[in-house]
């Protein structure tokens, strides 16, 4: 099956393209500056809608993550980014419900990072990649 041609796949690309193509100088006016932020947002809502946690639990985790960042002035190395804190809160509530394992998440993240995107697309491919010969 080619997921790339499904309606949902198209919708996803549309949304992500919209996000990445927005002018950068208007960044402060945008709700999302990176596609992953919108995914983080949508996943948090989806998990809540599927009954994994009360929205208030997520909010408390978010408040806690933001407070921790603010209290870490002097020690911290990360710049202020709202959706970093959002992701931290999301990981925390999902771990709390037992559906997310930190080790598993790290492992998967590592796999994604070590799989180059478009592995072959930095090289000109001057020959057909597949040929269905004439009969």
């Amino acid at each position: 099956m080619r997921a790339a041609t499904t309606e949902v796949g198209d919708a996803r690309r549309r949304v992500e393209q919209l996000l990445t193509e927005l002018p950068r100088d208007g960044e402060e006016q945008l709700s999302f500056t990176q596609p992953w932020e919108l995914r983080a947002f949508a996943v948090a809502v989806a998990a809540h809608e599927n009954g994994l946690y009360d929205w208030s639990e997520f909010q408390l985790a978010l408040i806690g993550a933001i407070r921790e960042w603010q209290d870490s002035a002097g020690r911290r190395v990360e710049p202020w980014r709202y959706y970093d804190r959002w992701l931290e809160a999301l990981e925390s509530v999902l771990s709390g419900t037992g559906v997310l394992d930190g080790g598993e998440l790290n492992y998967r993240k590592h796999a994604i990072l070590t799989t180059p995107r478009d592995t072959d697309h930095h090289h000109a491919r001057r020959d057909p990649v597949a040929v269905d010969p004439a009969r």
Partner: protein
Amino acid sequence: MTRSEITPSPDVTVPRSEAEIAARMKALEALMIEKGIMTTEAVDRLAEIYENEVGPQLGATVVAKAWTDPEFKARLLANATDACAEMGIGGLQGEDMVAVENTDDVHNVVVCTLCSCYPWPVLGLPPNWYKQPAYRSRIVREPRAMLRDEFGHDVPESVEVRVWDSSAELRYMVLPQRPPGTEDKSEAELAELVTRDSMIGVAPVRV
């Protein structure tokens, strides 16, 4: 691959790269979908809804109706949640809403000092500056100066500025003043004038 290669050191001394955070989110979403916690379709649908379908234009229709229908305005100020529900507007994070009215004597502005509580169903998702620590702290300490310096909105000294702290339980939206010279405009034309910033209270509605 050894375990140490995949587990980050606890005392991180360099900021994570954008690629790393994006990969982490991608991994999280993939795991949740594989475990059957959610479907890609549901996540996509939500992303689309919040990016494209709800937004300040819904709040703008509420404001325009309040400007043209005094009875609706009275209901909005008495119970914003119910008044918005009359117009079919409501949902997550819009359960308990309060509309505060700007007048010749009072200017209202909304913040969430703890995180970013915000009435999504009427205003869409909050802009980035709303979520910045700089806004969240300074608008409380010196709202008039911040409105002037950061938003170019010079509220006259004769007008009281009230800052409302949205929380998980209660979210505020501002009912801005109808600008002069709009007596002939229809409700739909008025709605086009109403901006998100005017409903947060950091800008007036301009013609």
